[in-house]
């Protein structure tokens, strides 16, 4: 049990000066994510989910507390942390293949091996044949697949996703969710997934970290003990769903 968790979020607080006085965005947030675990972070808007995402990603500094990845303190963004945003943030001047290969170009990988890896990733996210396409010609769902492949390319220790399916239609969202679960079981990645969609959290996560607001804090951490694939119509699903919803409201 003394094994180091993949991620340790240790007593994170974030305060800043707002227009109407000091704002406590996050207060004493702590939790661990085990290796290979799928954890969802849910909460109402204004509970500091996105702030917490940015702090874990090393994009923003906490007022106090620290984030550790494999026991090492996160000081800034880097290839250990794969980021996937709601708005994709693809490099529009690069083709799908060149977006996916971006991080690999930074590494000492021979060109042929790199191309092979890019091809494999494109296939894994179901975009075979679109390697030479520019992002402007892709739908939202396809763009998010590219973003996911790009983040996975550098083999990060943690995949950090901020409402990644928040901007796509319901049908595409369902498809992307099950594809993400497939990729997760295929790669064994550790995933921390921020969402405001309780159904999504129950469908995906091993554990759901439920946050509350004023100030942003952890309400409860719920273990979702249902076999996958999970179905909305299961009784157990409904029970978890209601329980988390009640916590948030």
């Amino acid at each position, binding site marked *: 049990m003394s094994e180091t968790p993949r991620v340790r979020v240790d007593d994170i607080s974030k305060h800043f000066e707002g227009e109407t006085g000091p704002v406590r965005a996050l207060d004493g947030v702590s939790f661990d994510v085990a290796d290979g675990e799928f954890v969802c972070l849910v909460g109402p808007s204004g509970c500091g989910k996105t702030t917490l995402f940015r702090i874990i*990603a090393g*994009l923003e500094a906490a007022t106090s507390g620290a984030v550790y990845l494999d026991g090492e303190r996160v000081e*800034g*963004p*880097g*290839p250990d*942390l*794969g*980021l996937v*945003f709601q*708005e994709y*943030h693809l*490099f*529009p*001047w*690069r*083709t799908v293949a060149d977006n996916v290969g*971006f*991080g690999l170009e*930074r*590494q000492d990988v021979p060109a042929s091996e790199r191309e092979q890896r890019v091809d494999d990733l494109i296939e894994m996210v179901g975009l075979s*044949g679109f390697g030479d396409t*520019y*992002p*402007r*010609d892709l*739908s939202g769902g396809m763009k998010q697949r590219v973003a996911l492949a*790009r*983040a996975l*390319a*550098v083999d990060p220790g943690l995949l950090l996703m901020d409402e990644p399916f928040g901007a796509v239609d319901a049908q595409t969202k369902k498809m992307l969710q099950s594809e993400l679960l497939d990729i997760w079981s295929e790669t064994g990645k550790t995933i921390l997934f921020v969402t405001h969609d309780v159904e999504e959290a129950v469908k995906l996560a091993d554990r759901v970290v439920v946050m509350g607001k004023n100030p942003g804090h952890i309400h409860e951490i719920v273990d979702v003990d249902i076999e996958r694939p999970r179905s909305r119509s299961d009784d157990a699903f409904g029970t978890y769903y209601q329980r988390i919803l009640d916590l948030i409201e």
Partner: protein
Amino acid sequence: MAVDVSEAVEEDVPSALTDVDGRRLRRGLGGVAVFLVLWGAASLTQPEYVLPSPLVVAETFYAQAASGEMAVALGHSILHWIPGAVFGTGLGIAAGIALAWSPYLDDVTSPVVRVLRPVPPLALVGFAIAWFGINHAGAAFIIAVGAFWINFYATYGGVEGVSEDLLDVARSLGIESDLELVRTVVVPASLPEITTGIRTGIGRCWMLVVASEIFGVAGIGRRILRASNNLQVDVVITYILVLSLMFLVVDVAFRALQRRALVWR
């Protein structure tokens, strides 16, 4: 299904484009014809040293081209247009990137930039003569100053507009140094603005060719100024046309380059 749709769209686009292009061309030629007729009519009411007819200008144009005088003047102008455009553009882009990227450099240089910005290149003729002399280098200096500011501001705006999120993504994919961020994200992301600046600057450089020759350097501008003093309006118009044509050729060529560089848009 998606592939089928995109192919169908690709087939449609060129034909739609040629339709539009054809219509534009017809309308444009019509406009030129009307302009020439009005010009010809107006020239009938005026002596030739005030407004020569299009035909007289055409004759003069031919004579200037045939005698080789035009090629000589153009050759001279190109010899300072090219270094002026190249140095002004290069330095303008470099300064734009550096100042938009580094708040420190921006703060340090901002007062000086604001003082220098409104100085018209023509006001720097004295410096051109003092530093470089009455030669191509002096004229190139005037042209470079004009190109510099256009490229500086275009690039500055482009770099300022680069999304912070793209930079975060790049950092999360292993980019560490500022130099690498600039190379892999900042420059490609602001390429639309940078290339628009280059294009505008190139045009401005042709305009500045006249100004840059005002203190005695040979070239098209010198030719225009000399003809003006002699009331040879047909020669003036001839060389104005040469400038316009040069601008057109370079602009069309650069636009093609720009389209290729920005296929992703």
